């Protein structure tokens, strides 16, 4: 139930809203505005003067093969991160939803990765897969694979994907588990009596009923892969080898902080901003409208 509160004056409601508005303005609107402004400026090499260049920074970006490369890297990377983390999270949730001994312990342990800082978990992956000292790297070599992600771009991409997806599995797991528990047991029993095997029950009943959850997680995971994976990439590959794992967010950092090309970096941030606004809009639109049973 929603209760409507009516204020008499106009001052109090604005006063009550003020802290939130202030935080949003200072930490969101102001930096966003600065980024948009910066994206239309070009600095001289010493950072003493800046010139207004209009949309030239953007035009250059989309003509730059390196930027387009980062774009396609990002698509591959985000797509695979979302796919793997959702698939594994769903798989584990289905297992955890069964009546098994020690289910609570199992569930608790599965949530841990989410509490580990991205840089730390990346360091962990680094030690496991380091071509020289990595434990798993040794095992992989034992199977005759020439494992060296410092040279092989495909392997590097695989590694950052796994590291980034691993962290998100916990989050997806919790949501899927809740989603599974919300499916009435009798519906599954009815399907069993109707003659459906366990696999068929999953694909024809459980998976469709989970689709609102899956869709929500897809958007969340895409946003995560777009914006939140800087730590993992920075600690593992620094975008290398030969920019094979340089995603949009990483390129913002490299161009802005390392190469001090502020105008281009700001233009890239604005592009990212537009992307996240689009994703969020899609999410709101669908979550409100679609699929609630």
């Amino acid at each position, binding site marked *: 139930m929603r209760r409507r509160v009516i204020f008499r004056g106009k001052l109090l409601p604005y006063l009550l809203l003020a802290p939130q508005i202030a935080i949003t303005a200072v930490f969101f609107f102001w930096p966003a505005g600065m980024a948009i402004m910066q994206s239309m400026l070009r600095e001289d090499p010493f950072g003493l003067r800046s010139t207004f260049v209009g949309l030239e920074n953007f035009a250059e970006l989309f003509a730059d093969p390196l930027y387009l490369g980062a774009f396609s890297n990002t698509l591959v990377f985000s797509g695979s991160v979302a796919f793997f983390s959702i698939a594994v999270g769903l798989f584990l949730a289905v297992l955890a939803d069964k009546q098994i001994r020690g289910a609570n312990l199992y569930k608790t342990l599965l949530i841990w990765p989410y509490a580990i800082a991205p840089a730390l978990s990346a360091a962990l992956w680094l030690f496991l897969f380091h071509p020289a000292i990595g434990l798993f790297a040794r095992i992989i070599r034992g199977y005759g694979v020439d494992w060296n992600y410092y040279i092989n771009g495909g392997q590097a991409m695989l590694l950052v994907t796994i590291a980034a997806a691993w962290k998100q599995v916990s989050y997806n797991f919790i949501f899927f588990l809740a989603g599974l528990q919300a499916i009435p047991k009798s519906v599954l029993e009815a*399907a069993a009596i109707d003659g459906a095997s366990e696999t068929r029950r999953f694909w024809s009943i459980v998976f469709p009923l989970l689709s609102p959850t899956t869709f929500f997680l897809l958007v969340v995971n895409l946003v995560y892969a777009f914006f939140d994976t800087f730590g993992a990439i920075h600690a593992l590959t620094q975008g290398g080898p030969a920019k094979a794992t340089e995603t949009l967010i990483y390129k913002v950092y490299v161009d802005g902080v390392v190469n001090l090309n502020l105008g281009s970096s700001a233009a890239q941030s604005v592009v990212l901003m537009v992307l996240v606004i689009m994703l969020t809009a899609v999410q709101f639109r669908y979550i409100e409208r679609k699929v609630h049973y």
Partner: protein
Amino acid sequence: MATLEIQGVQKSFGATKVLHGIDLAVADGEMIVVVGPSGCGKSTLLRIVAGLETATGGRVIIGGQDVTLREPKDRDIAMVFQNYALYPHMSVYENMAYGLKIRGLPREEIRARVQKAADMLAIAPLLDRRPRQLSGGQRQRVAMGRAIVREPKLFLFDEPLSNLDAKLRVQMRAEIKRLQRSLGVTSLYVTHDQVEAMTLGDRLVVMHGGVAEQIATPLDIWNRPANIFVAGFIGAPPMNFLAGTLLPGGTGARLDAGFEVGFLDGARVGPAGTRLTIGIRPEHVPPAADGPLKLTVDLVEPLGGETLVHGRVPSDESLTARLPGSMHPVAGAVLALAIQPAQVHVFSGETGQRLDR
């Protein structure tokens, strides 16, 4: 269509035993209603027959085949659930067709069967709707339709009417009975509602504490309840029980309430003074000016056609009488009631079992 045999089925959840060995043989086309208070194990029994629970002991035989260890899908049964358990993301048509699709029936036959069942249940206009767009009664029909199209060997009903309002329940009850008769499918129906049980069942299984207390036709159970539990459970308002002792020769009982009743159907075996419980239904204690039963009224429920009077007899036992609707005694009054001797039930005072001559 098939017979169903339940042989010595037991079920324990950990240390708790919920079914103590149930035996039941259901004839082809028969409708058996399992009735009992909540927690008596009736739903567990049904779920064991469905294969949703595994029995700790005993066997389930459907159509001559031992299915005790088979999965639900291999038992060729259909079940109607209390909460309907419709697939929420499918249309009514898809709900009904689901089981047929799995069995790989040709599309045309599926269409024909669903259409036929939908016509039978008057839900044909709803075939394109989703379950959430239906009312409770319509969902119930769809759930039944889903069971019917499968043409299974056995129908299982798990309290299918308890989520409906009273009027709809009466209507659906009649409909289920008509359907079951016309389809002739062997059915097992679980309910806690004794009126549903009496009206629907060819035979009833009255369960209590994991034990089948009595298995008989509704009228048999009404006329000759096997023990105090069955006598008190079947019939509304429930049967009255008065304590007493056996007269010498076993020809009657002396009630603690201060008078004697004779046993018209013959003498009971046993030494004089044996403790007895005499059962008499509320409709069998008519008012009579010289009646021996003195009832001090403390609550009157006028129902229009009849009046229910609750009160106490001199031995401080409570008693309910069903009087004509024209009578309206006031609380505190003392009513003189007779006992119709032909309607007296005699139970052992110790075991609660029925004593016949």
